[in-house]
């Protein structure tokens, strides 16, 4: 078998090695640290990835599943060397997690293998924790404004990038900024009116724009999508829609993030009276799952791996995990008599017992005492950002009136609100209040002291994990990648590339009261946010490094929801753009007609949910693009009837179907039988599309949103899929939405303009779809399209613009 490396760059690497010094490096001081820091963590006696151990000489010589790791004296046959010679971007490169080896380290390993790979007799290596990443100095004083904070952010990042060979691109132009920021902050492209307003403004227009977008009603829509991904909100789970509506409301009202998380962790009760409880219900109120997700989602720490065993490569022990989970140990889920009536309560006994079930043979298992395993940074003097936070919160408290107390009481009473405007008998009211207070403290609504304590610990301003995990996610949402990646895997073995930048932003976030809008304002006002992406001609390695350094923008595609809403906006599909009756369409559909007979046995029950998931094809087959709007307000009304609760969580169509099903049952509960008939009717097919950000979530499999990467949100650590697919193309090329968005409706402005002036109409179309004017070549091409039939030609032009790269990818 030829052992000559097949790859030119690899050969280069080996040649390089060949000229390195011939003397054997010293094992203890030069080789051992490399192996212990970079290899032994995954290749040891307990964890032998790829069947390979690198902690003993025997393991080294035996090799793994593929080949001997080291053949003493032969660098070309030593798989270990082949792998470490690969570039960081190559498949199979080692180490595959953490930092790549330096050139010097690789040369040392080479020299060592050539010298026969000497290894002290009987030595077994142990894993070493890597040194903390290097930091640069933080600014000495607090920024006076968001703009100043943004400038500090740029400065720190620049200093952290110093010495790395990256390319820094120019900022994108102001119109591209308008498009980028509008897409990021409110989840759709800007309208022509918004473009014109922006263009008419002076030098401070970017700052004004950001301020306007942060106040826009769609801001809450867009960032609910972000939070729904993070919290894995699923409408299909009891309380899922209420949680969605609650998050939406919390973002709209600017609830501080720490307060939000305290509510989520400490919530008790029923989803319709306390929607925050949806967080607990999402993990089925399982202490282990809740512990894993709370650590990973809110603190970016994958302690969940320690659920079953000591964490293989972090320093978490199984006991740590159990102690953390014990905060959720007394929480129980109760299923009410009616379907959909689910609530949480506190039991007396903890369900979290030690030792773990599989290690408990013959031993008594005892409840675990809760302990918070994350350490806070303690310092003698209070850090400035905490002082600032306290000052801010004091001010807020003074501003708030004594209404605070009343609000708390409200939360306690929790259940029915007296109908507004109805005069009440004070005595009766008092009695009622008392009885409800009793109810509150009775078993069903008992609140959790343990989780209240946990909520305080997680959101403690001294807990750096908490702010950093969130800041890292928001940063990634706005720039395309996190400081730490995967976003929820902070670890000594996966350190941020820009620790100081991350720390600075996190501290600003804390000091400003955990305000999401403030954080986004600082980021979007920075030069870093405005960077252009690198041209295609840039060498790939340099490109990748520059993007990782945030000195050039990562190419981002719109999220599925944003793409959907942007097509709706560009095509004027949010409202009817055709007069009534302009689009008659004959449809044939199947209806069920009762036969008048009834069957005693119900049909095989429809419980097999896996099948129910498949979306039923609508008459025209396009229901993979439909959106059924949820009424967030209605979801949050505090109604007592369970039936109503579950009704609210359903779409109108579902409610209709439910009613139909009820009607189908006769007095004896027998189900009537039906026959299927095909009917043909003419309907007014006037297109209109709701926002994709108000529908039940995640959308059904194969829905437009799912095809464009909306996650299933079933398990932890699932992120949006940003890859391209054939299905995406088919849906954009041939979908009803793109088609209808392209057609020029008589009620949209473009129709009028097109009748008057083709050039103006073309410019308008470019502005509406791409947020820019056509260049002369594009104008000429478009004129030719419009020559024969302006309306059909315009539809062709718009269809192509909507399908173009430039539309789908952010500028």
């Amino acid at each position: 078998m030829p052992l000559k490396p097949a790859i030119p760059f690899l050969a280069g690497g080996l040649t390089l090695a060949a000229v390195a010094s011939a003397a054997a490096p010293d094992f203890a001081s030069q080789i051992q640290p490399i192996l212990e820091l970079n290899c032994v963590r995954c290749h040891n006696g307990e964890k032998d990835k790829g069947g390979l151990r690198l902690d003993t000489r025997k393991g080294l010589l035996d090799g793994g599943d593929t080949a001997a790791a080291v053949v003493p004296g032969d660098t070309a046959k030593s798989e270990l060397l082949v792998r470490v010679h690969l570039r960081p971007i190559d498949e199979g490169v080692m180490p595959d997690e953490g930092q790549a080896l330096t050139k010097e380290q690789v040369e040392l390993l080479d020299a060592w293998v050539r010298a026969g790979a000497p290894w002290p007799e009987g030595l077994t290596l142990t894993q070493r924790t890597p040194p903390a990443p290097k930091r640069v100095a933080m600014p000495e004083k607090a920024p006076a404004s968001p703009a100043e904070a943004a400038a500090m952010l740029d400065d720190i990042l620049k200093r952290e990038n110093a010495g790395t060979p990256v390319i820094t691109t120019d900022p994108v132009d102001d119109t591209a900024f308008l498009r980028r920021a509008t897409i990021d902050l409110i989840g759709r492209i800007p309208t022509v009116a918004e473009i014109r307003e922006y263009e008419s403004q002076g030098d401070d227009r970017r700052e004004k724009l950001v301020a306007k977008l942060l106040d826009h009603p769609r801001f809450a829509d867009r960032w609910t999508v972000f939070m729904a991904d993070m919290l894995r909100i699923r409408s299909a789970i009891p309380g899922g829609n209420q949680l969605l509506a609650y998050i939406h409301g919390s973002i709209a009202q600017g609830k501080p993030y720490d307060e939000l998380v305290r509510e989520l962790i400490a919530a008790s009760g029923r989803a319709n009276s306390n929607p925050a409880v949806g967080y607990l219900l999402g993990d089925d109120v399982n202490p282990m799952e809740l512990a894993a997700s709370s650590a990973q989602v809110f603190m970016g720490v994958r302690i969940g791996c320690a659920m079953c065993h000591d964490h293989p490569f972090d320093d978490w022990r199984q006991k740590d995990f159990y102690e953390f989970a014990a905060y959720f140990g007394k929480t129980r889920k109760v299923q009410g008599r009616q379907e959909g009536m689910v609530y949480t309560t506190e039991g007396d006994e903890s369900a979290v017992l030690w030792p773990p079930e599989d290690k408990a043979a013959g031993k008594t298992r005892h409840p675990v005492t809760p302990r918070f395993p994350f350490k806070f940074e303690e310092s003698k003097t209070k850090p400035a950002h905490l002082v600032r936070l306290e000052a801010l919160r004091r001010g807020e408290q003074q501003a708030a009136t004594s209404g605070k107390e009343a609000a708390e009481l409200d939360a306690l009473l929790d259940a029915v609100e007296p109908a507004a405007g109805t005069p009440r008998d004070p005595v009766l009211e008092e009695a009622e209040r008392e009885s409800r207070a009793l109810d509150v403290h009775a078993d069903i609504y008992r609140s959790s002291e343990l989780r209240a304590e946990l909520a305080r610990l997680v959101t403690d301003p001294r807990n750096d994990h908490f702010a950093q995990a969130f800041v890292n996610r928001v940063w990634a949402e706005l720039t395309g990648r996190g400081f730490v990646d995967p976003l929820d895997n902070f670890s000594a073995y996966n350190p941020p590339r820009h620790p100081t930048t991350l720390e600075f932003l996190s501290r600003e976030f804390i000091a400003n009261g955990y305000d999401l809008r403030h954080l986004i304002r600082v980021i979007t006002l920075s030069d870093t946010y405005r960077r252009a992406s690198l041209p295609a001609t840039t060498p790939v390695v340099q490109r990748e490094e520059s993007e990782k350094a945030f000195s050039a923008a990562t190419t981002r595609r719109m999220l599925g929801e944003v793409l959907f809403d942007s097509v709706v906006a560009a095509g004027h599909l949010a409202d009817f753009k055709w007069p009534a009756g302009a689009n008659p369409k004959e449809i044939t559909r199947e209806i069920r007609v009762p036969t008048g007979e009834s069957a005693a046995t119900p049909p095989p029950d429809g419980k097999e949910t896996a099948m129910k998931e498949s979306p039923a094809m609508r008459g025209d087959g396009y229901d993979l693009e439909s959106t059924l709007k949820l009424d967030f307000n209605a979801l949050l009304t505090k109604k007592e009837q369970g039936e109503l609760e579950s009704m609210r969580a359903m779409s109108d169509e579902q409610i209709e179907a439910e009613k139909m099903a009820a009607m189908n049952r006769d007095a004896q509960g027998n189900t009537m039988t039906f026959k299927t008939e095909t009917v043909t009717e003419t309907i007014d097919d006037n297109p209109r599309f709701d926002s994709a950000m108000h529908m039940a979530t995640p959308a059904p499999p194969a829905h437009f949103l799912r095809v464009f990467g909306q996650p299933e949100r079933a398990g932890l650590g699932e992120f949006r899929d940003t890859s391209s697919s054939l299905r995406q193309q088919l849906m954009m090329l041939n979908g009803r939405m793109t088609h209808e968005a392209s057609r020029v409706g008589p009620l949209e402005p473009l129709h009028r303009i097109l009748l008057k002036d083709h050039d103006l109409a073309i410019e308008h179309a470019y502005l509406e779809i791409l947020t820019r004017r056509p260049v002369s070549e594009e104008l000429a091409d478009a004129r030719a399209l419009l020559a024969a039939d302006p309306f059909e030609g315009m539809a062709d032009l718009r269809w192509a613009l909507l399908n173009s790269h430039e539309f789908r990818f952010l500028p």
Partner: protein
Amino acid sequence: MSACTDYQITRRRLLKMFSASILGMPVSQLLAQANPGKGRAEHVILFWNSGGMSHLDTWDPKPGRKVQGEFAPIKTSVSGMEISEIFPQLAKQMHHAALIRSIAGTNGDHGRAQYELQTGFGQTPNILHPGLGSIVVSERQPLGDLPAFVSISGQAARAGYLGQKCEAYFVGRPGEKDPYLAFPEGISHARGMQRLQILEKMNARTSGSVGANDMKATEIALKDAVALMESPALKAFELDEESPQTIERYGNTEFGRGALLARRLVEKGVRFVQVNRGGFDNHGNIFQAMRDHGAVMDPGIASLISDLKANGLLEKTLVVVLSEFGRTPRINDAGGRDHWAACFGCLMAGGGIKGGSIIGASDADGMEPAERPVKVPDLHATICHALGIDLNKEVITAQGRPMRLVRKEASPIRELFA
């Protein structure tokens, strides 16, 4: 290299194309990469029966025992092999098929068991394992123009870390027109093609300037989409080419049409077809339910096997009838059976399988495997083995983590193969 990893031409992949570095194989031996194993199968048709199909009322009857239930066993075309009376037509095809009667499952929860049966892995946080179909199409190059992986009447397992391109192409209802495969109504073919030309020109202006890789990936997907729309093979999705007698022979139910569509797709080169059906979670009234299931499944599967045999595709096509677990031998008070994972069965036919074999056996009441227990991942190893897929293959996830396609401890049921 993987046939479908995805359209996202990451640098890693771009380089991979040139450098051909494949994990699971020493880079130094790359040039010596042999053809995939010696499996004979080229296609898989998986009938996925959601809800937990009773093993005692299908492949593993227990005549004369208390647990027998309402069905009598019937003789099949293989002497000594008996199956439930609900499959009279299939009984005549059993000389092409093998039964596995000793699957030792570990999970009695629908979600977790479905995940494990479809992916071969247990559900763990932070990783989404690809389903069987995705694994197959990632390892075997597509044949013809049609999507390599098609899921009918429901969703197959996701592609997980294999990426979007390994996801199944979804057919809502077999035989119904998919509006996304043709230009929208009112847009003639000529006009549609003209629109594509305009689009191509627009894209050419931008793709060189920024984000080249993502845009390149989008363009490849676009070309594939147009090729699919233009392909004569699309006819395979339409059942009106089949005679009413044929449709009737398959049962003319959604399931039957699905089975027929599966055959047509395989004929056009589709690698993996999954036909989904539910209704097996029969906690009550199981015998009526299974009688109805039999009436639907029997003509579809039997006709499929005999048609594949007739047109010579059976040797190359592995047919699998599978569910997430079996059901309790004990019949409950509601006349149903509950979840039972400790022992259940499945049917495999074609694809190089030795017809008429029975693998393993359950104990007298179908409670536990009595002979040759088969682990769930062994099923996956078996299917991959049938297709000649390297069981030791590792792929790199988007997060840079190497993952095996088949669990390390899994081994194929070698005695199934001739």
